[in-house]
């Protein structure tokens, strides 16, 4: 069956690139001050979370979360950079863009791809609303909601729907996409904007919404982590439920639906 129209395929891959660049350049920006706070201002002596390095030789990387310290040497706080030397940095060089410490470089990447991400998102939304694709894709049917529990069980046991059931997203997929599209992504954009002093002047409600600029920064970080979690699960399911068919679907639009067979093999030919 023809599953993914051109606009959906293009916006999907543009979105994938944007999210990856935004994540890595965002970690670069975070590294300029690797600590999070709640409220209007930074309470430097009582961060919610902070990464730092110790005076030891070689230095240890420490991550403090709600006052509890963890040794995160090599990963957070202190890690080996591209020059092979241990450096004091929040996230390691392989996770940031650019890889070396470069706040202004990270900001340039972040803002450019933030614009690309938002424009791409609007293109997807307009097309999705106009074509009815969005409704078809993410609004669960009454029947699906009734069988929510069974759906969860199928998902947990990695039994993927076949036949007619595989032609549209199941209830868990729909609800997940709903939350990502209409909660996480908008909140992420708003929290990003709330960190801008000029946007706070134009729209003071941004500060009310997030309980202050430093909270907005923390929310931006946490939502980024939730989006990473979403992508990890998404990619894992793509891999587990017939990778090549899924890739063909998202690259060419065409997706193979196998006739329903009993009993369902664990690695059935279906979709993500």
């Amino acid at each position, binding site marked *: 069956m023809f599953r993914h129209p051109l606009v959906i395929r293009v916006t999907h891959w543009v979105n994938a690139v944007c999210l990856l660049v935004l994540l890595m350049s965002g970690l670069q920006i975070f590294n300029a001050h690797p*600590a999070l706070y709640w409220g209007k201002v930074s309470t430097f002596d009582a961060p919610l979370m902070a990464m730092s390095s110790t005076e030891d030789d070689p230095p240890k990387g420490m991550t403090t979360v709600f006052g509890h310290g963890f040794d995160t040497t090599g990963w957070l706080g202190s890690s080996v950079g591209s020059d092979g030397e241990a450096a004091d940095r929040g996230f390691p060089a392989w996770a940031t863009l650019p890889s070396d410490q*470069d706040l202004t470089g990270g900001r340039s990447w972040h803002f*450019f791809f933030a614009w690309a991400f938002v424009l791409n998102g609007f293109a997807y939304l307009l097309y999705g609303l106009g074509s009815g694709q969005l409704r078809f894709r993410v609004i669960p049917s009454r029947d699906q909601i009734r069988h929510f529990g069974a759906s969860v069980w199928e998902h947990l046991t990695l039994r993927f729907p076949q036949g007619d059931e595989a032609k549209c997203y199941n209830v868990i997929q729909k609800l997940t996409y709903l939350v990502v599209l209409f909660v996480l992504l908008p909140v992420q954009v708003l929290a990003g904007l709330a960190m801008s002093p000029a946007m706070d002047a134009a729209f003071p409600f941004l*500060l009310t919404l997030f309980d202050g600029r430093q909270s907005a920064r923390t929310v931006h970080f946490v939502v980024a982590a939730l989006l990473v979690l979403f992508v990890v699960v998404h990619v894992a399911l793509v891999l587990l439920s017939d990778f090549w068919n899924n890739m063909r679907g998202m690259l060419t639009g065409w997706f193979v639906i196998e006739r329903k067979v009993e009993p369902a093999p664990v690695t059935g030919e279906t979709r993500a």
Partner: protein
Amino acid sequence: MIRLPSRRALLTGASAAAAAAMLGGCDRLGNAEWFQRTLKTGEDANMFVQRLLLTDRTLAPEYAEADISPWFKPNGTEDPPDRDYKALARAKFAKYHLEVGGLVEAPFRLSLAELRKLPARTQITRHDCVEGWSAIGKWTGVPLADLLSRAKLKPQARYVVFHCADTMDQGSPLEGGGDGEETDEAPAGNANPSMTKQSGGDESRKDSGGQQASEDSAASGGAPVRYYESIDLVDAFHPQTILAYDMNGQALPVSNGAPLRLRVERNLGYKQAKYVMRIEVVESFAHLGEGKGGYWEDQGYAWYAGI
């Protein structure tokens, strides 16, 4: 479906190789000038849209006394190494004069005492460092608009430049002295990464300034580079744009920019020039420093600092 036995291994290997290639590729791309210019269009778009959203008189949020940060984190230069400045500071800035000149009909000089006699504005505002942290302080000072009106701008005036007392480096490549006003971030990627003071959200780097490296820099030859900043007339005539001499009801401490610092709310910290000595009205800042309009701008930071 063809199922290769080593599909998983292949995929894992391929994705690891692709990721490594991509990381290296992005870094190389990020250093290419055409690509940097392309990326910067994002920041141009920020300024374009934010200027549409903000009127000339839209105020930055103001806060209550109770919101004032108990410790207003000083950043960048905390104690200018320059002899002239040290002499002024020793005399409690009694001999300090602010110069206002450039493209104006009536240039003038004012002492700190004279500045304090002018009508003042007090505002409690939030300071947002480009690094990510924030602090709230109460500022009292002279609205810049009053000073500019008094000097009478010539028709070709477009920018207001703030020349500061603190030497950032000696004109030679930066060596360990990369601290700057409002950000002790290392300048752009071409700088030596080891000078990045980077260890976290605590006070550990409060005293880690590199300013001693440039001690007596003015005497050691080469053209010393002093901090400077520029704003356009939209920000210059904004009602919250003041030259502050008091912080939290007391004379501005040296670490926060005594005797006079710029507050240009709706902008990030690196715009809030400290140790302001001279105000110059210009048509273009191309002839100053590296021509980008400010010390940090010359290191790659965006001239527009509203986000």
